[in-house]
């Protein structure tokens, strides 16, 4: 089907106001937050902004009939090129379909359209003393649909896990236009083991199996209290050892974050008033729950961390907590400031390693950065072994680009070599697909078979994930 015909047909199906076909308009959909699409933007033939399951079905039937690639997209905050159509297909921009369809407080669940912004959902749930625990750094802008597609998590994954743990059921439009409901058509139950678990299959499938059009989420009671501990270490190895000590004492903080010396330096350069102590590592523990348990766990953490740390501070006063947490909250931003003529890039930014290997991983990443003479800033969710590396380069200098791509490749290989994964929470998309065989071996063959069962024509987000 010719480009002009696809455009015309889509406009006829959904109306002009829901379809972008102008060459200029579609260019805006040629990127996400990945370094890949910064280097190689790829524009779709058309962008469709559906607001109902039926509209998605109409698009899928057309695409299926004519073998046109379809790429679902949320807010485009992903870092893998996952929501960009690499071969000039149709992009489904689901971000304006942002209804909170039903808060079912009696059953501790909520039903949402895919475009609902994470922070807005939690604002709404707070009215019912509920919350949806996964807490990505992009909470203000990312969509719940995008979180489902990437099985996103974030700062509180230590205690609350990833998105998949909260999905009770999904409505999915498949490549041929069929609509399935996973988790049971009418099920409002929390426990459900009937049938093959297609919900878990769909979560994290990055749009290669179908288009998620409705999400039933499990909510949890909102914690009443919170506290933050900051521990400062002179030896890097003492930081993960302390994390282990805390776990072994029977404490499960909601978040444990690490800043290594590169991140501490970056934060202090960016905002000198934060004035983090110079150290090899800083750990931030977040504890939440009921006030007495938070106080108890805070005191325990202070005691345990104090055995190895140079200093530990525990705070429950909201202002002081915000000050202590600020170092972590600005790290991603601060990274770019270590080089005034540079920019941080999102590549090799999300490896996940065994807890016991975190310190060694950080040391190895530093050595690799030295080898390629590239500045990097390391931080991450040490509580679950998720390391975020921010290379800072001039992205418009071809030599630096070439070097950083080699560095990123080595970081990914390092993760696999030490028994980890190339991605902990950001997903695979187009940028980590090349490691699929190394990570999963023969299983990739069966993953492809599963995809074929759902998408025999191979039109759902090709070139991604597997």
């Amino acid at each position, binding site marked *: 089907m010719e480009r002009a015909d696809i455009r015309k047909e889509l406009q006829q199906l959904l109306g002009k106001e829901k379809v972008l076909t102008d060459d*200029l308009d579609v*260019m*805006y959909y040629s990127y996400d937050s990945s370094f890949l699409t910064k280097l190689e933007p790829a524009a779709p033939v058309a962008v469709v902004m559906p607001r109902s399951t039926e509209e998605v079905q109409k698009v899928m039937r057309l695409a299926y009939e004519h073998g046109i690639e379809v790429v679902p997209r949320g*807010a*485009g905050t992903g870092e893998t090129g996952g929501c960009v159509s690499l071969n000039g297909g149709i992009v489904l921009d689901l971000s304006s379909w942002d209804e909170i369809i039903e808060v079912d407080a009696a059953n501790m669940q909520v039903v949402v359209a895919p475009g609902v912004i994470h922070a807005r959902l939690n604002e709404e749930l707070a009215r019912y003393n509920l919350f949806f625990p996964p807490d990505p750094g*992009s909470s203000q802008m990312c969509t719940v649909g995008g979180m489902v597609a990437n099985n996103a998590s974030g700062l509180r994954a230590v205690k609350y896990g990833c998105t998949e743990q909260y999905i009770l059921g999904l409505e999915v439009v498949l490549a041929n236009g069929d609509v399935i409901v996973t988790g049971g058509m009418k099920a409002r139950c929390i426990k459900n083991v009937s049938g093959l678990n297609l919900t878990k299959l769909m979560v994290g499938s990055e749009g290669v199996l179908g288009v998620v059009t409705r999400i039933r989420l499990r909510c949890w009671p909102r914690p009443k209290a919170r506290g933050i501990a900051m521990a400062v270490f002179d030896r890097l190895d003492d930081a993960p050892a302390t994390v282990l000590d805390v776990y072994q004492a029977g404490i499960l903080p909601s978040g444990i974050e690490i800043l290594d010396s590169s991140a501490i330096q970056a934060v202090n350069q960016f905002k000198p008033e934060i004035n983090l102590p110079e150290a090899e590592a800083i750990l931030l523990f977040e504890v939440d729950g009921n006030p007495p348990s938070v106080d108890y766990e805070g005191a325990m953490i202070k005691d345990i961390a104090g055995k190895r740390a140079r200093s530990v501070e525990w705070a429950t006063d909201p202002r002081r907590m915000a000050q202590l947490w600020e170092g972590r909250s600005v790290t991603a931003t601060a990274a*770019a400031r270590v080089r005034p003529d540079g920019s941080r890039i999102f590549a090799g930014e999300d490896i996940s390693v065994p807890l016991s290997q975190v310190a060694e991983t950080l040391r190895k990443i530093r050595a690799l950065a030295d080898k390629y003479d590239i500045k990097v800033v390391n931080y991450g969710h040490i509580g679950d072994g998720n390391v975020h590396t921010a290379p800072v380069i001039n992205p418009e200098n071809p030599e630096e680009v070439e070097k950083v791509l080699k560095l990123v490749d080595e970081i990914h290989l390092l993760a696999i070599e030490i028994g980890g994964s190339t991605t902990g929470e950001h997903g695979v998309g187009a940028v980590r697909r090349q490691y699929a065989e190394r990570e999963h071996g023969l299983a990739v063959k069966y993953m492809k078979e599963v995809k074929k069962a759902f998408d025999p024509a191979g039109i759902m987000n090709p070139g991604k994930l597997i």
Partner: protein
Amino acid sequence: MEFRKLPPVREQIMKCVRCGKCRSVCPVFAEIKNETAAPRGHVFMVQMLRDGQVEPASAVYDKLGNCLLCETCSANCPSGIDVHELNAAARSYIYENNPSLGKELVFDTMWTRPGLLRAGTRFMGGAQRLGLQTLARNIGLTKILPGDLPKAERILTHIPARSARSLLPVINHARGEKKFTVGYFLGCATDILNPEVAKATVDVLTRNGCEVIIPRDSKCCGLPHIANGKLDTARRVAAHNIKLFNAYSFDYIISDCASCSSALSRKNMEFLLGGLKIEDEAFAFADRVMDLTCFLVEVLDVRLPDYEVEERTRVTYHDPCHLANAQGIKVQPRELLTRVPEVEFVEMNEANRCCGGSGTFSITHYDLSMKILDRKMDNAMATGAEKLATCCPSCMMQLRYGMERHHWNCEVVHPVELVSQSYRQAALKLKNAM
């Protein structure tokens, strides 16, 4: 200066990681809801222009025009990108390649000559008073205006008979001991549309020991030109104003208009004139520029006469983008309001969200502007305020129209008007007591 050599174009485009934070705060994106209106999309398009991937065509201008230049994105950008400067630079580049006679007439001929601008608006004011505007609307004459103008002409609700310049002398002596000599940058909109604000400004400044000089020949601050793709004209008027004000020995140059003070700020001078011969003069000028509320609170530390107030007026405050986002001035106007004994200050939800006015935006993008305005009015009306204070004549005009549109009986004021009124009230009370 060539588009590609402008500092933001040269240095900042590469810093955008397209994280999307700007999407979550942009008032235009909240209405249009697709990526073509996302600030990061604008940065991307400027990059495409820079790299020659798209031609500087008017269609690209229209895309970049879906932006209020409210600087909410710039103020919130984790990478510190001045998205508004990139957008303005690109608009100018595209305009240079697609000049229009209409824009030349408005922005080069009229808006650089204060006398002509005053005469033009006086004519419109005269027509309003004679009922011609209503007549023109009734017989459908306004419908022949181009673009959104038939609808947007309604925003220009009331043009006073006399401009501030015709009401105020050039030199206004300090009352009591003189502390400072202050140059008052009287902006076009305050001059023509809000002369009462200018009178209050001079009143409050002179009461507090300032000799206030209003240089006769000052021109527009240049912001309308920046917004409309006329960077060269903006540079020209800036250079004129710099030389004019630098010829005096002012301790401070004060503006009661958020847009003017942001256009005259060092940040904007760096954007417009950085690297040019006039740079040093421009910075010497800009470093003395200060917003009126900042000056009253931080430098003069104005304290109003305290007296028994029988009934206080409920007042809320709208942050003009060019004050809150562009200059980070949020506390001072509120502080000033709370120092007025007659004021019961009440904060509105989303006080620092744009009202959709943004100078000429409400004229060029009427429907979009109204959607943004309606959200602002919902927030403002929920406070139950009797007066809505703000520090920008463009916001004032837009908010007045919003009140009319929503049939809300409330008054738009500049904080300095309440301060001036309070002085007079206190004096009256004292007189009556004697």
